[in-house]
């Protein structure tokens, strides 16, 4: 499935159309530390003797197998995964039949070139060392187990029984041994040379040479060269990788890029939102302000109108009063004249 990180639109509801190219939008290519180590695991050579598991337990001082657990092959009946006491396990993926030998594969942390366990750790407890291995620092770890959840190879384990000082348990590619100039315990123990330790770029050439030399023995693909940005462990197989529970058809884009693709939008939210919301707040305040002004204007207007009416009424009232007065005066004058007239008649009579 191709998910293009670069085109990811971080549009978020409720805010302005917030489009930011959220992919790890750098064009620079990170080739990894030069001369870093890797391991080549040739599953066609593996005979399932599990000496690597024994060696790994010895090197890491883990509880050993009881008795000669090595020889009972019933352990291959169901597929195991790495646990906190077994940092590597060998699984059988195809039974032997008369033409072909059985197919085995060793599981362990793949020490990715671009580790997603390191990317998702909130306390930066993982570190990709220049020599190649990805190291874990238990003194920083707070036990959130995001790395265990994120690992696409199901390679990380955790000490669930340990109540107070649980640690993430995983292969360290025998980092102390590498620093001493030795090779990892499993590579040293493997009788068939199914695990070869060396410089990663050289091992890729060796793997290609093996494929070129016997085309009918190998699937022409080195797993781990590019998957999710590539891993330190390189795997050659005679059967399709899907049958070895390996996702060979995935993007070459590293998981850190996919995992952090959205985080580029977060700073945008921090910087755009204040302006946006302040504008919104100002807008709604101004709206209130305008609304308030309108109300005042309306009030002033109504008051003004009211005043005018009052004056008119007053004026009208005054006029009426004046008219009434005049009428009263007329009436009084007429009465007076009438009374005067009547007196003349009476005077006249008298």
């Amino acid at each position: 499935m191709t998910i293009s990180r670069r085109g990811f639109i971080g549009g978020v509801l409720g805010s302005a159309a917030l489009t930011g190219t959220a992919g790890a939008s750098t064009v620079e290519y990170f080739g990894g530390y030069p001369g870093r180590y890797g391991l080549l695991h040739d599953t066609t050579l593996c005979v399932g003797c599990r000496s690597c598991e024994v060696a790994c337990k010895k090197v890491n001082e883990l509880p050993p197998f009881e008795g000669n657990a090595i020889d009972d092959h019933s352990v291959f009946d169901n597929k195991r995964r790495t646990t906190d006491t077994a940092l590597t396990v060998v699984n059988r993926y195809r039974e032997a039949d008369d033409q072909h030998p059985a197919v085995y594969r060793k599981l362990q942390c793949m020490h990715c070139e671009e580790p997603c366990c390191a990317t998702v750790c909130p306390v930066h407890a993982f570190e990709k060392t220049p020599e190649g291995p990805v190291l874990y620092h238990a003194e920083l770890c707070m036990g959130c187990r995001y790395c265990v959840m994120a690992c696409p190879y199901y390679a990380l384990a955790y000490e669930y029984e340990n109540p107070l000082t649980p640690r993430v348990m995983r292969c360290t590619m025998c980092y102390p041994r590498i620093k001493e100039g030795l090779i990892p315990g499993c590579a040293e123990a493997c009788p068939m040379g199914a695990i070869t330790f060396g410089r990663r770029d050289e091992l890729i050439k060796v793997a290609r040479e093996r494929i070129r030399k016997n085309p009918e023995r190998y699937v022409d693909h080195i797993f781990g060269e590019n998957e999710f940005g590539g891993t330190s462990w390189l795997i050659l197989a005679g059967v399709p990788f899907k049958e070895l529970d390996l996702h060979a058809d995935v993007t070459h884009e590293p998981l850190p890029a996919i995992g952090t693709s959205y985080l580029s939008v977060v700073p945008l939210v921090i910087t755009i939102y204040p302006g946006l919301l302040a504008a919104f707040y100002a807008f709604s305040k101004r709206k209130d302000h305008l609304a308030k002004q309108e109300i005042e204007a309306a009030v002033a207007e109504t008051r003004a109108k009211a005043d005018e009416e009052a004056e008119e009424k007053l004026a009208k009232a005054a006029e009426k009063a004046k008219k009434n007065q005049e009428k009263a005066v007329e009436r009084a004058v007429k009465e007076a004249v009438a009374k005067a007239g009547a007196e003349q008649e009476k005077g006249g009579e008298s």
Partner: protein
Amino acid sequence: MTRYANPLGSLGLVVAVVALGVPGLGLASEEATHIMSPSTVVMGFPESLGALQRPAVEFDHAIHTKELKSEGCVKCHVVEETSLNPAFKPALNLTDRNGLIDAYHTACVGCHQSRIDASLKAGPVVCGGCHVRHEAATSQWVAMHWDYSLHARHDQVFPDKCGTCHHVYNKAEKKLEYKKGAEDSCSACHGDHDEGKNLSLTNASHTSCVGCHLERSKAGEKAGPTDCVGCHDESVLKTYPPLDPVPRLLRGQHDRSWIGAENTRSGMVPFNHLDHEPQADFCSGCHHANLDPCVKCHTAMGAPEGDLVTLQESYHRVTSSFSCVGCHEERARDTECVGCHRSIPTAVSQRSCAICHSGPSRKEAGPDYPPPPATAKTTLPPLPASTDKLPDTVEIKVLASTYKPVQMPHRKIVEKLDAGIRKSQLASTFHGTTERLCAGCHHHSQEGTFEPHCRACHGEMAAAGIDRPDLKVAYHRQCMGCHEAMGIKKVGCTDCHAAKEVGS
């Protein structure tokens, strides 16, 4: 407020529509790879008439032959006395698209329908019944292939009457005639498609072979198979008992002949045809196109009719099973030989040129040169007795820590390998000496010696950069790899070295 339709009712409707509609979109289910039986024919449709709108029909010929036994082949095929045309009769020489489609449908569906009406067992009448989509289809159908015993059995039925099957096309008189000494394989002339009168290999073979089988079985005589499974099913082919002894197929070939191209300086190769014949199933093992000499198509510089494979390539190409060197490399992968040869690169080694090119060059031999004299079989000198250079057992203890040292039965191994080489003329000739086989394990030592010791190159630490394993891995890969390749069941840890009591 106007009351709308009861809200829950309209809601239920919307949910139902969406819930039912959407999943219908994607009912594709991954289907395991579909395996077609050997007698299943995928009905072809000429591209010239346009692409098929529905998946091609997989016609199960076996069921039809069983069901329509009584009506016989004439139901669908044009059958004459000695020939049966495999083409579908109703669709013969139809060239327009719809006409052809209708022809198929009326014939097949019509027949099914009439059988349903007569309440007989019948095939599908619905489009989806025949036109079924399959993702990855693999077929068990196997191309029919000849071998000496099958040819000899036909020879017994028609003694010295090669003309029954073999014929050549006389261009002048435009007719088929038999020509002694020009017998060849059918595929020499009959190609993939009909070219005018020259039928395709499929049509030609079914017409003559199946036709003849049918006619003889109808007349009650012993006859070959008349159904698809008879020639195209691997398991059935195995049931035909090969003749014992298989008489030699004589077609005028020399027992021994020189092989050498003109104007080359290298010596000619004395080729022993007689000894090489039993190495292949049939002449077509090497004469893969026709019985003409290689140089006719594989010219010195390569020619189109020879797929641009040059003459040198036709003799020396390592990856082809028709070329000399290619076939020899294939023999080197037999179980007796693969132990050592699995890690010997498949390439023409300069050392072995002289073994084949031992004759005089074309120039020295002059214009007419007699066929090569019979050469004696090469027999290798017997294995020398055990000495410290050829010890009976070797104790490998340099690495012994978790396991006890290994007591390697050196003599037994050498004898087993030597027996395999001695038995095969090819191996004896090319090995040349008995000590040659030592290089199988002592792969960087002078012939017959074991210096330098493994430890010299395979140290404590592997040289990963040049893919050279460390000593422990070198031992294990060499021994266990060889055992596994040769089917020797000694691959367990304690099969070779006893475990120390302290436990693994």
